[in-house]
Every structure is written in structure tokens, then in C-alpha cells.
């Protein structure tokens, strides 16, 4: 991962991957900055020295995101239109209780926001978790966790996403009717079985190819959503991409 790629104009870009995942920091209005590496970090990385802790309940956690980067309108991080791929390896470790049954969990992997990963200001984000008690499939609460892609749209009306549940594509309908404001949200929920919370690494991918927005877990497409419009990110002046939660060394 040492080679710096270049973009179409020949500019050097820096990896945000490998051992340095989320190690870049953007300081803005005292809201951002974080470390991901830590001598107390107990987990070896997927392919390198260490991974970034993104779950909630560690003593090493803070509410600071690991990483923030400018994603101004029209900028390099603007994925409101066009294809994109946001991916990472996720280690689903056993909890302090040593159980492989995690119960409902919820933690953020990345998100576009004005002021950081805070629920009130996010526009689109990828997270692991569910809503209360489990994922919500077509009117039924399931106790399955999932990789969730929350999208904010610029159009309203009924929207249908699909989740792969027990090998069957289950439609999930959202009424993205306006109440106020201009952002209408849907969720793409890629179910993850409890058995897959197995103290091991899993590749998680959030991607868009043409009109299909999809979430992959372990290389398998588990949720998708056909939508031709723009996503509501980078449509302001302070939208930034944030990755995970950071933590302050103790």
C-alpha cells in the first residue's frame, strides 16, 4: 500500500487504506482529529499492523471521528452522483462477554456530515447495526443485525429497497414523503447473521453502479436499491466525509 495513486490530472493522492486507515486528520472548528493507532489496540489488522476501533463501548472511544476530510460540493469526495465504492474490512469481535451473539449493535463506519458523525447532521452514511431490536423488513422486526446504508435523497415518494433475507430478496418500502426540509431517507439493510459475528474479518462494501446502490457483505450482495437521482451529500458548503469513531489513547 505504499504506492501513491494518481488521478486523471496526475495529482498524487494518499491512501486512506492499509495500516493507515483513517489516520489522516482534518482539523476544523475544533471538531475533528483522532488517532486510530494505539499501543493498547488489541486487534491486528486484516492485512497489516492494526485496525481502527469503531465500536462504541471501548474505554478507548471518544465521540471524535477517526478521520475527516473535505468533501465540498463538486469536490473529489462528492459522490452525490455517479458511481462510487466505499469499502473496508470489518472485524466482528466477540464482546467482553465472550459471546458470539452480539445482540443489537449500532456503530458508524463512515458518513457525510456537516459537523461530524452526529445523527442530526448526517446526510448519507454507512453503519453496522439496526434499528431498535433488529432490522425492519417489510413491516416485520427481525432480530438480525445488518450493514446499513442510510441514504438521503433529493426526491420524495415511495421508495423500495431490497434485502437478502434467508436467500430471498425482501422488498422494504419507504414513504419518503416530505414533511419538511429537502432530505428524504431510505435504508439499505444488508442482513448479517449472528453466526457471522465470528471474531473474524469481513469485507463490507457500499457501492453505486449506475442506478443501483448496493451493500455487500463478504462479497455477497445483500441489499440494493434502484435510484436514478442524486444523493443528498456535498450539496452544501461544509459537507465532509467522516470515517468511523476515533478514540483517544488512554
Amino acid at each position, binding site marked *: 500500500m505504499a504506492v501513491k495513486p494518481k488521478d486523471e490530472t496526475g495529482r498524487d493522492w494518499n491512501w486512506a487504506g492499509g495500516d493507515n486507515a483513517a489516520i489522516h486528520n482534518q482539523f476544523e472548528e475544533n471538531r475533528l482529529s483522532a488517532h486510530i493507532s494505539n499501543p493498547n489496540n488489541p486487534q491486528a489488522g486484516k492485512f497489516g499492523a492494526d485496525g481502527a476501533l469503531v465500536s462504541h463501548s471501548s474505554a478507548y472511544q471518544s465521540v471524535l471521528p477517526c478521520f475527516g476530510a473535505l468533501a465540498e460540493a463538486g469536490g473529489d469526495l462528492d459522490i452525490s452522483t455517479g458511481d462510487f465504492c466505499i469499502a473496508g474490512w470489518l472485524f466482528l469481535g466477540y*464482546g467482553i462477554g465472550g459471546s458470539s451473539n452480539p445482540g443489537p449493535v449500532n456503530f458508524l463506519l463512515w458518513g457525510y456530515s456537516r459537523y461530524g458523525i452526529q445523527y442530526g447532521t448526517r446526510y448519507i452514511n454507512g453503519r453496522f447495526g439496526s434499528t431498535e431490536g433488529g432490522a425492519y423488513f417489510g413491516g416485520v422486526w427481525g432480530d438480525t443485525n445488518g450493514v446499513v446504508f442510510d441514504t438521503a435523497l433529493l426526491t420524495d415518494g415511495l421508495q423500495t429497497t431490497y434485502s437478502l433475507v434467508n436467500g430471498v430478496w425482501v422488498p422494504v418500502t419507504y414513504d419518503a414523503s416530505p414533511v419538511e426540509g429537502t432530505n428524504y431517507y431510505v435504508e439499505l439493510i444488508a442482513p448479517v447473521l449472528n453466526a457471522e459475528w465470528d471474531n473474524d474479518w469481513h469485507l463490507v462494501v457500499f457501492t453505486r453502479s449506475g442506478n443501483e446502490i448496493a451493500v455487500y457483505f463478504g462479497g455477497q450482495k445483500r441489499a440494493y436499491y434502484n435510484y436514478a437521482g442524486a444523493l443528498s451529500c456535498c450539496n452544501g458548503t461544509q459537507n465532509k466525509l467522516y470515517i468511523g469513531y476515533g478514540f483517544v489513547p488512554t
Partner: protein
Amino acid sequence: MPMIDQVFLDEFIFIKGTTPYTGDFTPPTGPFDIEANIQYPIYIAPPEPEAVPVTPPLDISSSNFCIEVDFKINNLFQWITYTDGTPNITNQYYGVVGQFDQNADGSLLDGGNYWVLYLRVNADYTIDAIFEVCENGVIVTQLIHPVVVDWSALSGITKTAPDEPIHLAVSRYGDFARLFVDGNYSSAGTASGALTDFTTINGDWQIMGPSGQGFTAQPVSVTNVSLFSVYDTPYYWNNYTVLAWVQRTGICLYPRIGMRLVQGRPGTMRARLAI
């Protein structure tokens, strides 16, 4: 319910404009090889600070001079560390002002001559002010004076500086030069030394801040430059007391009513009579 405290993210990638995944696939068995597979990878980089060019007010390569400037580093961050606890870098540089050989298109000439006044943040977060002249790839003069900043206690991973800036000055008199920090040069034996004539630098002067230190992944501070003055004499040559910059306006009664603007350090004030 067991607590979940061991969820880690690694190998994060962000790609704009294309995606390698349009259907089920076998996860890669090694790190992403983006460069080989994707034409236009877009990754996150901190914004690169850019220097502000200034038309050279003086050729200091062979003349007496004094450069004084107030400079402020607003905060410092803890070093980002690798998993074994070792920092990924152990110092940072904040350019204050300098002059570098440039190519015809204005870009800096690799390996060119330069002089520069800058601050270096050391591994223990102490700071040194440094005036340096490099000729033909060799540093021919390097004056160093420690800088004392009354930092706040750490808040999270950053600490902030007081409002007062660091007053820096470097003077040349003949073949000698002295570097002053807050009016003092004599308390550091490395703050004075020989400065013989060097090759004239062809580039603009640059007010730099954190620019020029390259990619380090270490967050950089916001910096401020103010009261930048250049003299063609060694305006300061002995230790001096830094006086606050004063700016006042007022109306004075002379034989006729007039207005006066006074600006400068007491003892060196400049006055203009508008009427």
C-alpha cells in the same frame, strides 16, 4: 447482553467515479490493489497548505538586513502513533518566511538554494526557531533558538497556544547573523553565527505557515503571520524588549484642527498627519 467492544475497521478505501463491484465476488485475499484495477482512484488527503508569495523586498544574500515577524502556532496535536506506540513522525515544520530558487514556471527548484526562517516542533513538543541558508545542497548557516510557548493542558489530543504570538527576528551585520526569539538571542549559543555572502536566490519570498512539510498524516495547526517587517539594516543587534504594536487614531488640536494616525512600536512609531 454482551458488550460489543471489539469491532475494528481496516483497509478502508474510497473510490469516486467507478466501482469494482457490480455483483457477487470473492473478497480479495490481500490488500486492495487499487492502482492496478481502478483508473481514477480518489482518496482522501488533507488539504495542502500553500505558501503566500511575496515580491522580494531585498536581496539578503550579500547585504545587511533584519527580518522581524510575529508568528503564531495556534495549537499542537499529539503525534499519531503506530500500533506499537512509536510515532509515525517525530517533528513538524512551520515555515515562517523564506526564499527558494524557482523554475521559470514558479515551481520550486529541487535541490536549489534557499534561505528560510521556520519553526520546528520536536519529538518532545518543544519548539525551535531556525534560520537556515542552504547553498548547493549544503546548509551553510543554521541558527537555532528555542521557543517557549505557554501551552494549555492537553484537551483531547490537542493543546492550544496563548493569544500572544512568537516574535521572531533575524539580523545580519557584515558576516554575522543573530536570531532573536521574543527579543533574545544571547541565551542560546546556537542563535548567532557566521553568515557569509551566498548566491542570490531567484524566487519570491514565501510566507509559509505549515506548507512545505509534505504529507505526514499529522494534523497541522492553523498559523498566523503578522507585523512582517524587513529592514536593510540590522535593526536589532542586541537583546531587546518586544513592545506591543500600537495602532491609534485621534483628533489633535494644533494651530489648526487636524487628524493623526500613529502606528508602530513605541519608540519606533510612525506618524502621519492627514491634515
